[in-house]
């Protein structure tokens, strides 16, 4: 009887899974860093109009978002079906836009305060009256750089 028993040749050693957590953690950190959380839940329908002469909005820290559109189906009972403005997580009136912009501007870093852009995410079915009102409010608080956020696509998609 030999002390050193020969291993059976057909038996594969089990693959070590000890480094699996490391790999997963690596992926996890990547996604944690790359994630931008949706900061507000949409309470309005938001089918953006299409345009093809678009410019990218890089640098999310320089953008203030204003949403507008008809309240989505679960809010229709409470707020009616007329187009509304949404600032952060709540519905707002046109008069509140100015105060919102000033508050947002104050919350940004000093050096960014002059380069902020206001992104208007407005539903395609909205009437221009509301958009004009928002624009007038923005002019009052001197937030002149705006961006009509759109989907990418030909203008023909807007015509039906």
């Amino acid at each position, binding site marked *: 009887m030999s002390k050193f028993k020969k291993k059976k040749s057909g038996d594969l050693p089990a693959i070590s899974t000890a480094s699996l957590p490391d790999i997963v953690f690596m992926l996890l950190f990547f996604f944690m860093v790359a994630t931008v959380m949706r900061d507000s839940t949409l309470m309005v329908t938001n089918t953006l109009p299409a345009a093809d002469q678009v410019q990218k909005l890089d640098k999310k820290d320089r953008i203030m978002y204003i949403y507008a559109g008809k309240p989505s189906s679960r809010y229709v009972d409470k707020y009616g079906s007329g187009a509304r403005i949404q600032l952060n997580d709540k519905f707002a009136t046109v008069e509140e836009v100015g105060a919102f912009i000033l508050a947002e501007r104050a919350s940004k870093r000093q050096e960014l305060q002059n380069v902020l852009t206001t992104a208007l995410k407005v539903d395609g079915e909205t*009437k221009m009256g509301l958009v004009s009102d928002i624009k007038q409010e923005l002019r009052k608080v001197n937030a*002149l750089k705006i961006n009509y956020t759109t989907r990418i696509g030909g203008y023909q998609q807007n015509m039906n």
Partner: protein
Amino acid sequence: MAKRAAPEVNAGSMADIAFLLLIFFLVTTTIETDSGLNRKLPPMDEQEQEDIIIRQRNIFTVVVNKYNQLLVEEEPTELKDLRQMAVAFLDNGGGQGEEACDFCQGEKDPASSDNPQKAIISLKNDRETSYKVYVAVQNELVAAYNELRDREFQRLNPMTGMSFVEANKTYNDPRTSLDEKARLKPMLDEVKNLFPQKLSEAEPNKK
């Protein structure tokens, strides 16, 4: 009594926990960036500005009514023709002497704009106009400017192999090196000077 060794914590479920977190972040990630039409609003002046006299032929009026119909230079128009009409207007170069335009390739119609620096597009919409039509009109007008700027950019800087839009995109990209930006800036500014975007929006009429 023998000192009891602390039992080793089983790390076997670490992977499960990590996977759970990973899946959460995978689901909540939005990597894509928004894009849209950049515009600049006119500042609001308290004091009344004195009126500047602009010749009627230098103004290209676009009106969108509440039924989303288009009136361009007093003529009912389809949206698909708007881009070509705006290009023809901007590129007309009908001016004489001082106001002549040496790079325009238009028809030199004396009833249309003198030169691109003078040409103004005036956009007016009704409160009942739908937003998506408004965006489509804006898109077509920006497209007209971009078309002409592309042409001039390629004529002035044939060696870059880029169009104005591409060059502008490169310039605005935060990953572009400072050297490259410094190189592109004078080229872009030159073309922007040739075709300044003079898009005036009438103040919305009160109901």
